[in-house]
């Protein structure tokens, strides 16, 4: 217990130089590179499984080439699907290395290639097998279905098509999050349905071979991390901390703080700026989960979030009864002190985007004068928690600017019309930008504008940490 307290104190002490951040960044970079290497190597390993079972001798005729390429496509496609599961499993190591956002972005970018590979697998094998028996690919479906485990594999492919198509941007907009998520859960069924035919129909993963052991280990890793980190860990954490709604306060029209009470909340290990996925257990809200950042660092027994009424789901949160049970998944995200790379700190937040920034500032370590904050709002009514942020900034020796007013008409600027005309620039407001980590948080449209401006200033992309509020 005493050692625990001691390490906490050490961690809270402001670093003397930027060296600590540089070392941490280098460490994170090495881990990130290792993940990228593992991703590509796993794809190569899938192809190597085929080579290891003597596949190279299977390229002597058109039929054999089609069949062989089809088998390799299936192996690599399945490997990609398993990698996608790992990326979506919210494994703490991956979250701390590349962050939840990038993990999900990578997950999404693999979706279409994986589906194409699996469709190619099915098509090439039907053509190849059909040619070897002298029938057309469609007619080959009949004999294939008569093989054990093949009907399941066809159903699995059908489900995977549904999952990927429902996730295409154009199609996804037509679904509610819950509807889309329900379809997305079918990917677990699809992955499970595809396994038997890989082990029984294909010769690559033959009984007793090392290839089979490796492949099953991949499945165990992927499905195991989903079960552990998406289901078991959140359940255990929710049961352990027993959070309940303690108070609901409207701080501005449509904006509410929800105070939560629970056990041993410091043990959550949440950093300022991170988010949890919250589920409020009332008959009307339990099926809806909300990713919301902490708006203050948790104490041992309380935590706080601030919600803006942005949709039907969050509208119900503003009237959530005190005493409601809350289950949690998290903490997630790299929008925190853990992402620091540079000695100085710049924070720019707009609208409801101030909430994670409020907690981030509270936890961030910096010497007086090394942090600059710019708060941005369209109207005075939208200056949520500004008083709190100003108080923290004053106590820690940070400079705090504010900018209230609408954007200029006809020009793409993230500033107010008045400041834009006055000739304010990023460099004039933040002279130390080059030595800073820049944390940006706000509505997507505004954030896109300021991110362009920040990137144009020439600072390295690893110094920019952006969190968009779409929800």
């Amino acid at each position, binding site marked *: 217990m005493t050692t625990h307290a001691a390490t906490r104190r050490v961690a809270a002490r402001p670093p003397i130089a930027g060296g600590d951040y540089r070392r941490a960044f280098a460490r994170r970079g090495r881990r990130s590179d290792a993940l990228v290497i593992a991703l590509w190597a796993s794809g190569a390993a899938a192809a190597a499984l085929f080579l290891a079972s003597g596949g*190279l001798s299977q390229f002597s005729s058109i039929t054999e080439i089609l069949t062989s390429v089809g088998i390799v496509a299936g192996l690599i496609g399945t490997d990609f699907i398993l990698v996608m599961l790992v990326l979506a499993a919210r494994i703490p190591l991956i979250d701390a290395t590349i962050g939840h956002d990038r993990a999900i972005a990578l997950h999404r970018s693999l979706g279409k290639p994986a589906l194409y590979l699996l469709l190619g697998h099915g098509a090439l094998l039907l053509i190849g097998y059909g040619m070897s028996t002298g029938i057309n690919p469609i007619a080959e479906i009949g004999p294939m279905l008569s093989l054990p485990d093949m009907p399941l594999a066809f159903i699995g492919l059908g489900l995977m098509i549904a999952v990927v198509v429902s996730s295409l941007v154009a199609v996804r907009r037509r679904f509610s999050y819950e509807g889309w998520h329900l379809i997305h859960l079918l990917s677990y069924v699809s992955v499970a349905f595809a396994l038997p035919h890989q082990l029984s129909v294909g010769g690559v993963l033959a009984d007793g071979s090392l290839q089979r052991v490796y492949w099953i280990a991949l499945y165990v890793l992927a499905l195991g991390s989903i079960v552990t980190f998406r289901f078991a860990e959140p359940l255990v954490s929710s049961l352990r901390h027993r959070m309940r709604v303690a108070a609901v306060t409207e701080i501005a029209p449509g904006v509410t703080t929800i105070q939560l009470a629970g056990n041993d909340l410091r043990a959550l290990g949440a950093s300022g700026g991170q988010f949890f996925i919250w589920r409020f257990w009332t008959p009307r809200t339990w099926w809806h989960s909300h990713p919301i950042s902490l708006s203050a660092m948790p104490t041992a027994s309380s935590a706080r979030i601030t919600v803006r009424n942005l949709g039907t789901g969050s509208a119900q949160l503003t009237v959530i009864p005190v005493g409601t049970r809350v289950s949690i998944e998290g903490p997630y995200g790299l929008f925190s002190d853990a992402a620091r790379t540079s000695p100085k700190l710049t924070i720019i937040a707009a609208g409801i985007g101030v909430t994670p920034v409020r907690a981030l500032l509270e936890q961030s370590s910096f010497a007086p004068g090394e942090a600059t904050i710019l708060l941005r709002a369209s109207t005075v009514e939208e200056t949520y928690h500004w008083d709190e942020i100003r108080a923290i900034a004053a106590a820690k020796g940070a400079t705090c600017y504010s900018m209230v007013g609408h954007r200029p008409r006809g020009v793409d600027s993230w500033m107010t019309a008045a400041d834009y005309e006055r000739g304010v620039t990023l460099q004039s407001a933040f002279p130390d930008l080059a030595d800073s980590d820049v944390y940006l948080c706000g509505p997507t449209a505004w954030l896109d504008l300021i991110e362009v401006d920040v990137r144009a200033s020439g600072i390295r992309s690893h110094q920019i940490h952006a969190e968009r509020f779409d929800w």
Partner: protein
Amino acid sequence: MRTRAILGSILASTSVLIVGYQAGVSVTTSDGTSLTLPVDSAAGTDPNATTTETAPTDSSSGSSSGSTTDSTAPEAAAPETAATGPTDGTYTGSSVSTRFGNVQVAVTISSGSITDITALQLTDDDGRSVQISNRAAPILRTAVLESQSAQVSNVSGATYTTQAYLASVQSALDQAGA
């Protein structure tokens, strides 16, 4: 940073593929030798008449008890009539291993000609191989019965099964003295 990830990925992927290729080469070459082996071994064991003759008796008694007495009797006389042509009886060919499983057939000879071929084992490592060998076996059986030899054309899409099947047939014919 990114360069390191890219170079690392290329290096790791290449090594993994090379390892896979090496493992694959050893698999194919070992299969290649085992595929030609049976013919050699059948020829090599020919002088040891006693061992080759006892083997078929055991297996034929296992497969069809009715023909046991029929097949043992001619075989006892086999050494004397060997010069004139194939001896009647049921002969079990050697088991030929392929990368999809072992293949072994029994050949029945009566009145000096091949009258039946029974597949004792066909490639069955995986579902697809079972499908392939089940399709190829009847075709090969008909072809061998028609040509009265193991010199028949390949069944396309079932090359491994064909080669192993015919090798096993040939070893059975060698035993019969055909």
